[in-house]
């Protein structure tokens, strides 16, 4: 059993062995609250009162041995539902109960409650209903065809990260500041003063909500202490009560209270509305270190105690699977992972100096010992980061379960500066759930959905017609057989691309407004710089910075497709466009020679070969420039990032074969990785190709590299992987992560899942149990090019 102490061994075991299940507690409380209160107050106040009602009435849980308290629902692995966003049908509940992967137990009585109490109230009222009924036919056609996905279909904007605010102030003080802001409202001259007042009052109510939750925990712990017969546990329960007396109402005084403060905030955010998409602690090592240092000097804490408490927090993350998704949204990202992410190392955000400290190492040691899916953890590597820290992180990473991932501090900061943020704010930058970048605590950076770029090429090759839904869904950019040059094809592709992106953004603009009007997040707004100052909600553009991301999927696949047509059809004239289209239609069956030529004897992205890499750059720049900088409806701007989660599997599954030899329904490429098997020149060439795009003009990119254990063993292996990372980051690469497992192990795990229950692999911006993955995704991970040594 893994765990630094007996306590964390036991807590971890409970966390990993409990079957996830659904609880209707939140849905019932909320339905009851809405029935009684909807229409009586302004929407932000209603949402805040609803949040307070939940925090006042939900069941509390303190597990045996726990030191950090609070759960998203009634206990470990129990998930709430959010009918205001997506009211699951009874059929949805049956599916989530019975499906083989990512299943959640639903008891029969709850299905009756859902049918008789929850659904009758929320039907046609949930944001999902509002969204789907507001979309155009063009949008619906593209969505059904898998041209793009929509993040907010079953969930709210999220994916944000805390900064240091609540380590310096308690919620009493936040509330005081809000009251001052209300006092300063100018009803004579400000025509939205009334709206601001409602928003600020809502924020004040949400401060009460979290403080009540803390007080309830203090009282609950005292009650348990009274009954407790074991004197040691009794003392611990009183210690917990003491911590909850201080936080969240006041600022934390100790390392343990700082952890408890974070966790109360985490539970608050994820209870309010952030259903799925991660709220993350960000640069926790930076924020905790002052507490650790002070207590260490005073002799009230040591490594041992700090490590155990960190493991307690770690397990808390793992106790909270992401609430159940259904339909396409599950396919986009099939996982229990809630995408909470730590950013350790990097720089001290206050000074810009090297940020690695004792707590950074405590986090690495905890990650190594716990080996849990959640939280996802990464390290930031700066030019200033000591080699010792990098090597320790590589040492953990090469154990093969995918954590930590590596991020480039200098590049992150440059991205943020390029997007118009100040240096002070940019130093608080990092990734959140996956690779997307933002200024922690100062920015609403909302992922809006994935864009299937290779399928846009497929549409272009079919003059706008989609063969999966048998419908004309794009614009008619011409019959490719009539194209006289590669340039004509490229122009047609870029027209098609702009059209599809416009369909997506038109939909986004409506959805953003639906959330701004109907689903404000006052508690999140308390914690985000800008909202209090402007009296505007996090979901309505209140944050200091507002970014809307569209995630670009399949750059590797589309590059190789274009390279294939350019090289084979227009330059070498090995075959005609007509012959190529016929081969694609036949999924290359009976076209073995053509398949051999495109697959094995055509330039490919990922080999440090400018022929293909220049095409990648053309596509990259075009997609970026169509999206980047466009205005969103609540004052934000659009930006791209290059991350797939597991969406590249879904996107591939709705596609025909491709001009690069990819067979129909097979995955497209993930992140900025090359097509499987295309990168034949080894990892340095992959890294060079990937570094050719300007990462700093995106909001993040994702690169997977897989190694066999033997290829990176020993001290020299540590040196070489460290050097690869340093080199990639020197070239301003954003992110790199490793899977270090040999192919035969994965194949064996597929055959004998029971023997590999512990096998964790890196999937995209997160790791997952190999057994939890559907077969297509397992195959995809097995097929990712294994970089090895000669």
């Amino acid at each position, binding site marked *: 059993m893994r765990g630094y102490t007996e306590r964390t061994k036991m807590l971890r075991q409970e966390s990993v062995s409990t079957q996830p299940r659904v609880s209707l507690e939140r849905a019932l409380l909320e339905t009851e609250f809405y029935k009684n209160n909807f229409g009586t107050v302004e929407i932000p106040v209603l949402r805040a009162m609803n949040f307070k009602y939940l925090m006042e009435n939900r069941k509390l849980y303190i597990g045996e041995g726990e030191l950090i308290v609070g759960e998203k629902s009634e206990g470990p692995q129990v998930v709430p539902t959010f009918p205001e966003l997506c009211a699951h049908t009874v059929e949805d509940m049956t599916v989530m109960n019975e499906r083989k992967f990512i299943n959640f137990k639903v008891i029969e009585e709850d299905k009756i409650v859902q049918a008789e109490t929850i659904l009758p109230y929320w039907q046609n009222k949930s944001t999902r209903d509002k969204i789907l009924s507001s979309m155009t036919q063009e949008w619906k056609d593209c969505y059904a065809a898998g041209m793009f996905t929509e993040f907010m279909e079953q969930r709210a904007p999220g994916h944000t990260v805390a900064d240091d605010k609540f380590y310096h102030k308690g919620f009493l003080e936040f509330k005081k500041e809000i009251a001052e802001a209300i006092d300063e409202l100018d009803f004579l001259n400000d025509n939205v003063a009334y709206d601001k007042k409602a928003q600020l009052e809502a924020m004040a109510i949400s401060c009460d909500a979290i403080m009540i939750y803390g007080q309830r925990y203090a009282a609950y712990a005292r009650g348990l202490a009274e009954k407790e017969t074991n004197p040691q546990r009794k003392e611990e329960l009183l210690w917990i009560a003491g911590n909850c007396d201080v936080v969240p109402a006041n600022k934390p005084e100790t390392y343990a209270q700082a952890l408890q403060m974070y966790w109360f905030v985490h539970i608050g955010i994820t209870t309010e509305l952030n259903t799925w998409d991660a709220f993350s602690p960000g640069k926790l090592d930076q924020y905790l270190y002052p507490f650790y240092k002070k207590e260490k000097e005073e002799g009230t804490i040591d490594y041992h105690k700090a490590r155990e408490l960190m493991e307690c927090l770690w397990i808390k993350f793992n106790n909270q699977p992401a609430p159940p998704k259904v339909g396409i949204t599950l396919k986009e990202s099939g996982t229990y992972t809630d995408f909470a992410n730590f950013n350790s190392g990097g720089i001290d955000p206050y000074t810009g100096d090297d940020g690695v400290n004792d707590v950074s190492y405590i986090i690495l040691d905890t990650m190594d010992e716990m080996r849990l899916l959640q939280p996802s953890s990464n390290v930031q590597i700066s030019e200033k980061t000591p080699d010792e820290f990098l090597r320790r992180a590589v040492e953990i990473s090469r154990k093969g379960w995918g954590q930590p991932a590596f991020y480039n501090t200098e590049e992150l900061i440059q991205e943020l500066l390029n997007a118009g943020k100040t240096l002070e704010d940019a130093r608080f930058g990092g990734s959140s759930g996956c690779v997307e970048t933002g200024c922690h605590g100062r920015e609403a950076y909302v992922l809006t959905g994935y864009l299937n770029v290779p399928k846009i090429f497929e549409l272009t090759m079919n003059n706008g017609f989609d063969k999966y839904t048998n419908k004309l869904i794009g614009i008619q950019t011409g019959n490719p057989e009539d194209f006289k040059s590669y340039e004509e094809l490229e122009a047609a592709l870029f027209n098609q691309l702009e059209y599809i992106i416009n369909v997506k953004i038109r939909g986004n603009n409506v959805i953003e407004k639906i959330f701004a009007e109907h689903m404000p997040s006052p508690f999140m707004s308390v914690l985000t710089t800008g909202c209090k100052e402007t009296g505007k909600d996090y979901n309505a553009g209140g944050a200091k910075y507002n970014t809307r991301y569209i995630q670009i999927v399949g750059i590797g696949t589309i590059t190789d497709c274009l390279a294939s047509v350019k090289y084979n059809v227009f330059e070498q004239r090995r075959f005609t466009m007509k012959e190529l289209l016929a081969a694609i239609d036949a999924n290359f069956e009976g076209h073995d020679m053509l398949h051999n030529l495109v697959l094995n004897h055509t330039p490919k992205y990922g080999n440090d070969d400018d022929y293909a890499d220049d095409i990648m750059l053309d596509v990259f720049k075009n997609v970026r420039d169509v999206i980047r900088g466009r205005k969103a409806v609540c004052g934000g701007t659009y930006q791209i990032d290059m991350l797939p989660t597991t969406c590249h599997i879904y996107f591939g599954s709705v596609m025909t074969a491709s001009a690069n030899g990819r067979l129909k329904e097979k995955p497209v490429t993930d992140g900025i990785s090359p097509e499987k098997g295309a990168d034949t020149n080894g990892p340095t060439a992959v890294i060079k190709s990937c570094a050719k795009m300007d990462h700093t003009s995106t909001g993040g990119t994702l690169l997977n590299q897989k190694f066999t254990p033997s290829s990176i063993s020993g001290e020299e292996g540590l040196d*070489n992987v460290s*050097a690869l990372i340093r*080199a990639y980051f020197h070239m301003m690469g954003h992110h790199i992560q490793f899977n270090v497992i040999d192919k035969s192990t994965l194949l064996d795990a597929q055959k004998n899942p029971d023997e590999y229950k512990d096998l964790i692999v890196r999937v995209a911006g997160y790791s997952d149990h190999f057994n939890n993955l559907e077969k297509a995704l397992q195959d995809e991970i097995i097929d990712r090019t294994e970089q090895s040594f*000669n």
Partner: protein
Amino acid sequence: MNRANIFNIQKFSVHDGPGIRTTVFFKGCPLKCLWCHNPESQYINTQILYDRDKCALCGTCEKICPKKAIKIENSLLTTDEAKCDCCGQCVIYCIQGARQIAGKEYTVDDVLKEVLKDRVFYEKSSGGVTLSGGEPLIHIDFVEELLKKLKDNNIHTAVDTCGAVSFDNLKRAAEYTDVFLYDIKLMDDEKHLEFTGMSNKLILENLKKVSEIHKNINLRMPIIEGVNGDEEHIIKTIEFIEGLNISKVNLLPYHDIAKHKYKKLGKVYEDDRMSKPSDEKMQKFKEMFENKGYKAKIGG
């Protein structure tokens, strides 16, 4: 402009000298070692490799060959080497992947351009470029020019040599070489002749002379059960290198992963005479060197 035939430029090469390196494999070698794991490196010109097991005898290559060098008769495919100019069309159009091309003519600047692509990795890992083969020093004009240009670019250089070349070639290379990876196969001259096709006299003599002009020599010793897997060989080597500038010894245990290449070259692989040495033996040999104060490592 100097030209040479090169059969592979291997990026992220980490067993041929320090750090992350690019290894340039030259074609042509004076030795014909029985265990050679790059048998396609022995012949100096470009060659077509043919895998009979993969070949479906579909006849595509026969039709496509511009020189009409390929014939299929009685279910047997033959390539007339006198006609074949290694244009590579048969390789591209072979669906089965049964044909490969080994070797391509490069100019020094072609090679330089390719190896400089990974410069950032050399800098971050204290790596560089290794010239190997085959035997790089039979292409001394090319090698000297390439090494000089690499040094002009501040790139760390290693030369992996069998030593069976004129000492003048070693001397010309030495000026621009940071480390020699010098192969010692057998101390017993008779066996050397038997297993490599050449006497070891020149090799050993050259090692002594190189040591007089160069400070940094790594000894690389393949250990093959059935050929040199005896302590006698190690003892004699240690005696021989006493007083020489040997900074490190790499003991490379025999493996047979190159076996398939022999078949494709139409050569016989005499694996019944060779086998992998035990881990214990490798460890013992390593200790024998360490006991004499040498830095020794199993593997590259």
